[in-house]
Each structure stands twice: as C-alpha cells, then as structure tokens.
C-alpha cells in the first residue's frame, strides 16, 4: 500500500474527466425507484397469499407491517430531530471546553 492514514498520505482522488458511474445516473436512479415501488406493492399484496397467525389481533390485519414500519420510522426520525434541537452541539464542543480547563 502506497498510502495510508497512519503515514499521513492522502488517498487518491477522482481523476479529472471521470465519466459518471452508471449506478448514479438519473436514469438508473429512476429505474431503481420504480423497481422498489413494484417490490413494495408486491409485498403488501403478498398479505393475500399468507395465513397470518396474529398474536395481538391488529398485527394480522391487511398491510399491518407495511404501515407500522413506515409510521414507526417517521416517528423516530421526527423524534430524533426534535431531540437534536436540544442536544446537538458542534463536534468540537468538548475540545473547546478543554482549553478553558487546563
């Protein structure tokens, strides 16, 4: 290995004029979204094919895991955002403090 952070040598950067990788082209990304939507729809429709053995009633209803997963994630992201308002600090927060301490 010619470079490595322990020796303080920077990793190589993208060469100038490098073509856009096929995976991140707009067309590919659109295709991925369409494929994702199809899979999601198929999974929800899959509820028709299985015989759920519900433990608590509501978890046996149609599409429960889909809306519950989506809703839980939205709730957690929003809660984290709200908590961040109070608890987020610059990532040099403790370093600045230390200068005053010593």
């Amino acid at each position, binding site marked *: *290995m010619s*470079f*490595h*952070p*322990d020796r303080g040598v*920077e*990793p*190589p*950067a*993208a*060469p100038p004029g490098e073509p856009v*990788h096929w*995976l*991140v082209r707009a067309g590919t990304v659109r295709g991925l979204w369409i494929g*994702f939507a199809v*899979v*999601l729809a198929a*999974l*929800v429709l*899959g*509820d028709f*094919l*299985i*015989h*759920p*053995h519900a*433990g*608590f009633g509501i*978890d046996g209803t149609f*599409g429960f*895991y*889909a*809306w*519950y*997963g*989506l809703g*839980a*994630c*939205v*709730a*957690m*992201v*929003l*809660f*984290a*955002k709200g*908590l*961040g308002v109070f*608890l*987020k*600090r*610059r*990532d040099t*927060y*403790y370093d600045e*403090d*230390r200068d*005053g*301490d010593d």
Partner: protein
Amino acid sequence: MIDFPPGLVLVFGGFVLPFAPPRARAALLLALPAAALALVWTLPDGAAAAWPVHGYELSPVKVDALGRLFATIFAIMSFAGALFALNQARTLELACAFIYAGSAIGVALAGDLLTLFVFWELMALASTGVLLAAGGDGAFRAAGRYFVVHMLGGAFLMAGVLLHVSQTGSLAFTAMEADSWSTWLMLAGVLVNAAAPPLSAWLADAYPEASWSGMVFLSAFTTKAAVYVLIRGFPGTEALVWLGLFMIFYGIIYALLENDMRRILAYSIVNQVGFMVAGVGIGTEMALNGAAAHAFTHIIYKALLLMSAGSVLYMTGRRKCTDLGGLFRTMPLTTLCGTVGALSISSFPLTSGFVSKSMIAQAATDETLAIVWFLLMAASAGVFLHAGIKFPWFVFFQKDSGLRPPDPPWNMRAAMLAFAALCIGIGIWPEPLYRLLPFPVDYAPYTAPHVVNALQLLLFSGLAFFLLLPLMQRTLTITLDVDRLWRAGSGALSAAGLASRVLAPIPAGRTRVRARAARAAHAVLHPFRPEGVLAAAPSIGTMVRNVLIALLLALVLGFLATRDTAGAGPGARADVAQDNPPTTSERYP
C-alpha cells in the same frame, strides 16, 4: 486438562506477542485463537474443575451449553479479528486484544463468582490498553473516562460478590433473584458493562477512538460478556425488559443524529445489546435462546460492519459521514461486505440476524407481552433505518466525496469475506447454531408469514429513509449525553465544575482564602499533575501526620469490627443465611 481455562491460551499468548519476531507473531496471531477454540471444544459437557481455597470452592472452568456457546464465538471472533489486524503495527494493541479476548473466554467458562470477577477486571484493564494503543490525545482521554466507568462497574460487582458470599457462604455462579443488596450490586456492575442506562454513554464515547482494528475487538467482548452473565445470573428479571427497550431506542435515536461512521455503529451496539437484555428480562426458554443466539450472530455481523468501517478508515483516514460517500466505485468488496453486515443487523431474511432476533419477538408473543412486542417491532424497523441503510448509504453511496481508495490488503478482505459468509451461512442454515443453544429449540424462522411480514416491515422502513432523506443530511455535530456531566468544563461532575462548587460559598472579597481553596481543589481534582496531591513530594512532617491518621483509623475500624462480630454479628449472619438460602436454581444444571 480440565483445570486449565482455555482463555488463558490467549491471555498468556498476549504477553508473548510483543516479543515475537514479525513472522512468528503473524503465525501466533492465527494459531492461538484456533488453539483456544480447539481447547473449548475438547472440554466435555458438564466438566468442572474444583479448587478448594480457604473453605470455598473455586471452579475456574465449568462447561455447559451456554458457556461453550459464548466461549466459541469469542474464540472465532479473536481469530477473525487477528486476521483483520495482521498488518496492524501497534503490537501493544494486539497484545491487549488477545488478553482481552482470552479473559472474555474466561468469563464465559467461569464456574464461580471470584473467577468471573478476576477475568472481568482483566477485560477492563486489557480493553483500556486496546484504546490507549491507538495513540493520540483523544484516545488517551477517552481511555481514561472508559477506565473510570469500568472500575466503577467492577467495584459494584466486587461489592456484590463479597456481600453475596458473606450471606450465603457460597461462591457458586448460578441463577439469582435480584432481591437483595448483594444481587442488586452485582446486577448494577454487570449492567455498566452492558452499556445500560444511565451509563450508556461510555461505549459511544470510547470505542470510536480506538484504531481501525481496535474497535473490531472492542465491539465483541465487553457487552456480550455482560449479556452472558445476565443470561446465566439474572434470567427473567422483569426490570431488564424495560432497560433493554430503553437501550434499543436510545441507540436508534442517537445513531440517527450521529455523523461519525463508527460512532453510528457504536450506538447500534447499545441498540442490539438492548434486544438481548430485553430477551433476558422476558426470561422464557425461547427468550433466553433468542438472547444467546442474538449475541452469537451480533458479534459476527457487528465485527463485519466495523471491519468495513475500519477498512474505510484505514484507506482514507476519514471517519465522518460528511467527508465520505461514493466509495462503492473503488471499494466494491468492502461495500459488499459492509452491506451484508448491514442486512444482517437489520434481520433481513437469509441473514443471521433474522434467525436470532425473531426468537426474542416470538417469546414476547408467546408471553402475550403486547406493549413489548409492538415496541420490539418498531425497533426492528428502526434498526434498518439507523444501521441497515444509514451506515452503507452515507459511507459508500450518497454524494461523491471524490475519494478513490482501493479495497484494503488481502488479510482484511479475507476477514470480511469470512464473516460475510458466516452471516449468510447462519441465515440459510440456522440448525447448527440452534443446536449450540442452551435449551432445545422448537422454532421455525422461515415460514411464509414470517418472511412476508419481515420484508414488509424492513422495506417500508427503507421507504421512510429515502422519503425523509432531506431530514437525515449529516451535520458536523455531536449529541450530548449523560457524560456531559463530567466531560464538559461546566459539567457538575467535571473538575472545573467541582472547583467552582468549592469556591461558591467563599465571599468574593476574601481573595487570599479563595486562592488557597482554588489551589487545594486543583491539587485534589488533578491528583497526578506535578502540583497534585498524589504527585507532589510531601514533607516528612506531612508523612508522619498521614501515617498517624491512617493508624488511628485502622485502630478505630478494627475495634468496631471486633465488637460487631463478637456481639450481634454471628446471630445476624445466621438470620440472613436463613432468609436467603443459597440459590440453587436448576436452570443450568
């Protein structure tokens, strides 16, 4: 052979490593964990060493299914970790990592509380060494904070063990009820190592300061050894259900706010250990099997995730999501292995996490614990959100950072491939793992409803991630935790905070008194500085005074102690012994 704890192979090996020439060191790094694993598996079931010491019975090795399961995964982990770290030039780190891993195996096979405690403390010492070996001011300070927290936990454990022995007269390590001071203290000591609240912050504070290979070792042993002790010592303790659920959501929320790639993974360790702690709290055979199986699979996929993060750190020297991204172009193998780890931690079908975590949820269903089950399901969705997508997305995809590092050296690639193969192998063929579990397994993970439900939950969490991506953009921030109390200059438990507390009652006009108080406070709060109480050279007069005070104290304490044992002592002890007969639960015969 039964008298020889297999973990000592690694402990002694760790002391030899620094003195071995490079080639021999590489050979030892791979041979010692293999030897330890072989020794673990040659010990017959139910075997136990017995050393009588001063009327107590020590059993440094005791083998049953649970102990063997944890010893096995600790040995496998040290092998893969050593392979990953073959090109680590910090010999101190490797030596400490082996002592650390060996002590973890020692904990897993300890038959009595004293042996357990000795290996427990050795783990704390050696893991601090792993942190220190990273070098630099940040690692040094983090190691100091880590050490203090673990010494506190160790003190709780020691006090609990001593009290327990004095009350029951037995050193045996069996299932206990958390219903007395002795068991509460032991439980508190173990929970500190499990990163349970209120002291969860040590993990995300210290681990990400380790080297690129150091954190791979650190992620595996301390918290999982604590889970092992909880499974054997405190199954069915209801409080653990709620502590575990708190850890689960704490890990998710803090990881969502985090920018450092390895700190995201550190918070997700707390999250995953939360699932295990909750499982221990539920306490049925299904739940304990689930907690044990999840510890086993978690060690593999978490190490895999940290190996991929370690490879990125090794090849780029960068650790923040804001500096990374787009690495899939030139690090395809690291991306692939990191993604396998991310899918496993999210319990995707056909990965190891699916066959282990679902047992804990199943146990909640069997016991009709509705609230627990709904929270566990929400948490499963959250794991995919904070670790399953967030980590690979921000490190390997998202915006292009312009960095084009290649994949890491062969040994690091081999270690990642081996653990990625294990993640998928266990996911497809769970039976060998199920056979290692402490109780017979009557559970089929791959039924049509299980798979469809899990995929729905996970992929719709994925949808939530990409819909909310504007809210998830990384910022150059950290998130405050309980450790602000002693880390920040204005924290109530920090040196500066305590000093200001001392000066507060002295009137502002008394400048000379204030100056003397400030000097005294400084000397006490920074004892090892040149002007500190423990480093400054005392005069002979001071020493004589201190010795006199110490002797006087010893005299008074000795007098009190003899009076206690001569008077009410024995009677009281007999009463206690009757109230708390030695726990001889037969859960783990």
